Every structure is written in C-alpha cells, then in structure tokens.
C-alpha cells in the first residue's frame, strides 16, 4: 500500500514537471511566459523560505535581507567592475551565509516570536543602510546591463531562457529539499519544530539545526534575489529588502502549506496569477480593489484553511490521491 502511494506521488510530480516544461510552448505570448517566470521566481523564494520557516518552524519575517543581497551583489559587480552579473551570484551566497550566521547565532538562543522580530528588524536595518550607501546606488538603486554584451550577461529579449533557467533552479531546490527532509537533518528540523525542549531531550542539536536550516534557506533565497535582479535589470532598496518582499515569501509558503514540499509551489501557482489578474482587471481603475481582493482572500484562507491549501487537497481529494504523510 505504501509503495503504491509513493509511486502515485512520483507520477504526480512527473505530471507537474511535464506541465511546467510545456507551459511556455503552449502559451507563446510573452506576457503569459512572463507570468510563468514570475511564478517560478515566487516558488523558488517561497520554497527557500520554507526550509527554515516551514520545516524547522522558525518564522522569518526578514528573508528580504537575503533576497536583497542576492539581488544587489550581481548588479554591483556589473556596475563597478563591468563583470557579467552572473559572477556576483556566488559572491552573494558567501555574503548571505555570513549574514545568516550573524543573525542566527544570537537569535536562535531564543524561542518563538523573538526570531521573527529580530529578522524583521535586521532586514529593515539593512534596507535603511543600503538606502544611504552610495556604492550600492543609495536610494536610486542599481541597473543591470541595458543592452546585453553577450549571452553571458543573461539579458535576454525573450522570456523563454529565463523561464527554463528558473525552472531548473526550482527543480534543483526541490530536489535538495526533498533529500534534506528525508535525511537525519530533516528529522532534526521536524523535531525542533514540534518542540524544542522535547527535541533537546532526544539529543537533537537544536541550535545547530536551526542555524543550518537558516543557512541553507538563505543561500537559496539569495539565488532567488539574483535571478530577480538579472531578470528585472534593476534593484533598489524597496524592491530588494522591502518588508513586502519578506512577507510575500511567507504568504506564498503559508498559503500553499508550509513545511511541505509542494506547498510553496501551490501557493505560487495560486497567488501569482491571482495578483496579476486582479491588477490587470482592476488596477487600471485605481480604486485599490486589487489589494482589497488580495487581502480579503488571504484573510479568508487563513480563517478557513489555516494549514494551507495542501490541507484542502487532503480533505477533499479522493482518498487514494492524497499524499502518504497526511493520510489518516
């Protein structure tokens, strides 16, 4: 029975992968492909957040700090050294790893809301400082290559290359997450989430687990930021480090189902088209209806499906389709 379920899940993932692979070939319009690119980007950031926020249960409200570093460094190496932005990606990862140790070491002594508040404050602090730092373009921000010098600048005129690059990154991230959650470390994370005291008594290295989870999560969030900056060709303090950037990751992961592999992806599949659609239909009128609907839907979901849409699936889908771990 268990093996049957596992193969069902594998088939489900394969089907999903196939849908993602052919999507831009079915929808040839640049706009729909762009929605696909943004959806993948949102799924990458939310999945990265999910490692520490979902699996390890440490709710960061400041992941924008990693996203922002990831976005800024590639454009900084381009602006100041003339390098292709791509070369900034590994540098950014090193920076966020250091940053996550600085943030994580002291705050992981604490439990509960302190970590949330600390991440929120550090992200705001960095946003304010970058806004006054001339080398980083201060308030005006940094631009990428306006006209590409070669393919290595990754400044494409078509959305298609972005789409498949982002899809590749997402697939890698999900594979890594899948491996991690099956490993001993994954068990540690779930134990920490369930209760730190109990975890400690079972011999789980609580602080180290939290720190590693944060570092892994930060590294992938940084990559998401880099992808954003290379694709958009621009970043300023608000679009890199803003509180909305941090909260967006949290919302998408929580909406889909935090602490599950597919949750952030479901969240992105729902939320990104929803955002685009409401803005496309109601944005031009300027009455703010976009956000009234957006806020309203978030409230309703939190009220009626606190576990995320994954729960909805597990409640209403035919029993044999449900994922194994949630079966009664």
């Amino acid at each position: 029975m268990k093996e049957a379920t596992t193969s069902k899940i594998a088939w489900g993932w394969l089907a999903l992968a196939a849908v993602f692979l052919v999507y831009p070939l079915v929808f040839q319009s640049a706009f729909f492909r762009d929605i696909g690119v943004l959806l993948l980007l949102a799924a990458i950031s939310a999945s990265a957040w999910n490692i520490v926020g979902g699996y390890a249960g440490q709710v960061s409200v400041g992941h924008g700090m990693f996203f922002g570093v990831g976005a800024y460094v590639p454009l900084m190496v381009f602006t100041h050294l003339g390098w292709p932005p791509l070369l900034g990606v590994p540098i950014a990862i090193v920076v966020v790893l250091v940053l996550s140790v600085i943030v994580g070491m002291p705050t992981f002594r604490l439990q509960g809301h302190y970590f949330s508040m600390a991440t929120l404050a550090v992200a705001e602090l960095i946003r304010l400082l970058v806004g006054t730092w001339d080398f980083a373009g201060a308030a005006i921000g940094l631009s990428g290559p306006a006209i590409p010098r070669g393919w290595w600048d990754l400044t494409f005129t078509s959305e298609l290359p972005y789409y498949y690059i982002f899809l590749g990154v997402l697939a890698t991230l999900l594979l890594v997450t899948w491996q991690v959650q099956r490993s001993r470390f994954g068990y540690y994370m779930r134990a920490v989430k369930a209760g730190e005291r109990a975890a400690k008594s079972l011999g789980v290295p609580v602080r180290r687990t939290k720190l590693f989870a944060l570092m892994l999560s930060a590294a992938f969030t940084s990559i998401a930021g880099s992808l954003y900056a290379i694709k958009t060709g621009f970043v300023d303090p608000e679009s890199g480090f803003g509180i909305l950037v941090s909260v967006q990751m949290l919302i998408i992961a929580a909406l889909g189902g935090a602490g599950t592999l597919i949750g952030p992806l479901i969240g992105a599949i729902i939320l990104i088209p929803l955002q685009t659609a409401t803005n496309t239909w109601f944005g031009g009128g300027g009455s703010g209806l976009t956000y009234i609907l957006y806020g309203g839907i978030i409230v309703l979901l939190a009220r009626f499906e606190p576990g995320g849409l994954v729960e909805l699936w597990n409640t209403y889908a035919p029993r044999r389709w449900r994922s194994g771990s949630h079966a009664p």
Partner: protein
Amino acid sequence: MRKSSFVLAALLGASLVGASVAQAADAVKIGILFPLTGNAAAAGQAAKAAVEVATDIVNNDHPELSDIPLAKGAGLPGLGGAKIELVSVDHQGNPSVAQQQTLRLITQEKVQALVGAYQSSCALTATAVAERYGIPFVVGDSVAGNITGRGFKWTFRVTPLAADFGDAYMSFIADARKAGKQIRSIAIINENTDYGTSVAEAIEGAAKKANIPVAARIPYSASSTDVSAQVLQLKDKQPDLVIFISYTADAILYMKTMKSLDYTPPMVLGDDSGFSDPSFIPAVKDIAQGAMNRSAWDIGKPGSTSYKINEMYKAKTGHDLDDTSGRDLQAFLTLAEAINRAGSTEPAKIQAALKATDLKPNQLMMGYRGVKFDGTGQNILASTYLIQLKGDSYELVWPFDRTQNKLEWPMKGWR
C-alpha cells in the same frame, strides 16, 4: 470554503484567458503606466486624470484651445480622424510590476505607444521593455538622469530632468541677487528616495559650480512623523533660502513644525511634488504665505488656454492641475502630435515623427521653451518657472521677464 475555493479557481482560470478585446480598426491605442496604489497613489491618480483630459482634448472638438495642436476638430486628422484609446495600468510603484505590465500593454493590448511612469525606478524597467519591442515610450514626469542616455532609441522624455532643476535654481538665485535680495547660503532638505536624492544631488552640484555655499544638506525619510530635528538644524544654520524636495505629508509637516518652533527662513522654495499636491495649499495656506515652488505650469489668467485646460481638469477631479500631472499631460499631447504627423500607427514611423518634433512655446500648455529631442531622447527645450503662494493660489514670479507679478521677499510664512 468550497465556495471561496471555487471563486479562486474561477479567477485563476479566467486570468489565463487574457483580457484583450478586439478594437475598432482605426483607433490608436496608447498605454499609460502610473502608480495607482501604494505610497505614490495620489500623484499617480492625478497623472492619470491629466492624461484623460489630454485624450479628451485630442479626441473631441475644442476650438477654444486652438493654440494646442489637435485640439481643434475631433481625433487625429493625419489618421483620418482616428481617436485615441487609453489603456491604463497600475504598476504599484514596483519596478517588476512595471516591467510585467509594460509587456502586457505591448504584447496583449497591442498598444502603439506608451506614457509613464512617475517613479524613476519604474520608468527605468518599463522603458527597457519598450526598447526591446521597439515601441515608443514617452516619459512624462520621471526626473532621474539615467533614464535617457542609456543608448535607448525608443525612449523620449519631455520633462526637464533633475540637472535642469539645479540649473534653474542657480539662475534664479543669480537673478534674485541682482534684484537686491540677499542670498548668502542655501540649505537643501530632501526626502531620501530616488526622486529626492537625484534632485538634491543635482542642486548641490549646481550650487558648487555657481559657487553658492550650501549651509546644510539634510536627507530624511518621507514617512517621518516628526521633522523638528531638521527645522532646528535650519534655525541653527540660518540659510537665506531653504529648498525642500518633499512629498506631501512631509511638506505640510515642515510648514507646521516651522510655525511651532517659531522659525521662518527668508524664503522657502519647494521642489514641486509635495508643494504642488492639491492637499498642500488647503492645509497650510495660512502658515506658508509667500512660499515658492517650482513649476512649469501656470494656470494663467481666465480665458487663457492653460486656464481652460485647468477648468477641464477641475471639472473632472475637483481640484487644480498641478505641475507633475501637467507635465504628463504635455507629454501625452506631444506624443499625440507626433502620431498625427506620422500619419500611421506603425511604431517606427511614430519614432521618426517624435525625433522630428519641434513644438513652439505657444503650442504648449506647459511653460517649456518648446519640445525638441536630442539624440538621447531628452527634450532640450524643457524648462521651468518658479511660482509663489499668495492667498490661496500660486502666482508666477520667475523668470522675472515673463511676469508682472512681484516676488515677495522675505516670505511672510505664518506671521
């Protein structure tokens, strides 16, 4: 829950169907991008209303505005009387959304030209998309220097840019000194997003060149709930002219705080924006008498063209047209005139016509010296006025040779 998830599914499904609708064959479609939500929503909404007035001027017969090209007669005569159809989008002040919505306007809505985008950050990403697809983008009001000058061939900017404001202030100071006003030093107070920073840097640079001492340059966050530290600094430094580059709430707060801290500099000069916002005058007219403001827009005497345009705008929104929205209105009229001259909706022909644009001051509703683009797409004849708050409206006071109104110096303020 079943119900709300159904609604969600419906929204999702419908979003994939796309919103483009077949158009009447000869209408010219122009996309406009402004921040209609978010922190700059008030300015974005005003700009959108101004562009709608411009569309009305072009599409309908307005013989009373005969100086303005295309006002007389309905539609675009060069295209057989075709009308302009607007497609408005909200970029929310988010550069990524600006990029996405520009893409939608071009590929889904099939617009023939674009106008926008208020925040310079959004103008930067939106113009890059337009460049990629070869669609003309006319920048109405974004002032950061680097929007033009990136080698783009499809970006045109009608508005003066930050450096022009710096130069204008310095020539005003020179003129005022000649007229016997004492200006020993200036202070620059700027909000610290892209707008305030780029204008403040331009002013500081121009002041250095003109050898005018800057007693203080104070950046601050526009969301501050308390600005008394800045006012106390000013009180301490005693500059003769204080230039505020501020948004609305903070501009009002400065005027109120100056009163509560018993301070009036000889002159306050607002850099447009907050000082031009329709909420500014009603909130502070009793305490900011004589404050100056930058504007290329002057309502003018009853009966004048600009006065009539203002009446149209006022009927629509309930308040006077401000400079920022006026610059968008002018940008839109410039684009419409070029499309008409091109006699075609083909982007390349519109681009060629924009390059050949040569509008004279009397054909404009703004106080530019004309509209003529250089190789980078920047309007080289863009310029600005200075106006002064007298009673409950602004009056043109500079350039001195363009007006009979007297510059009141020092300002009365709240006294």
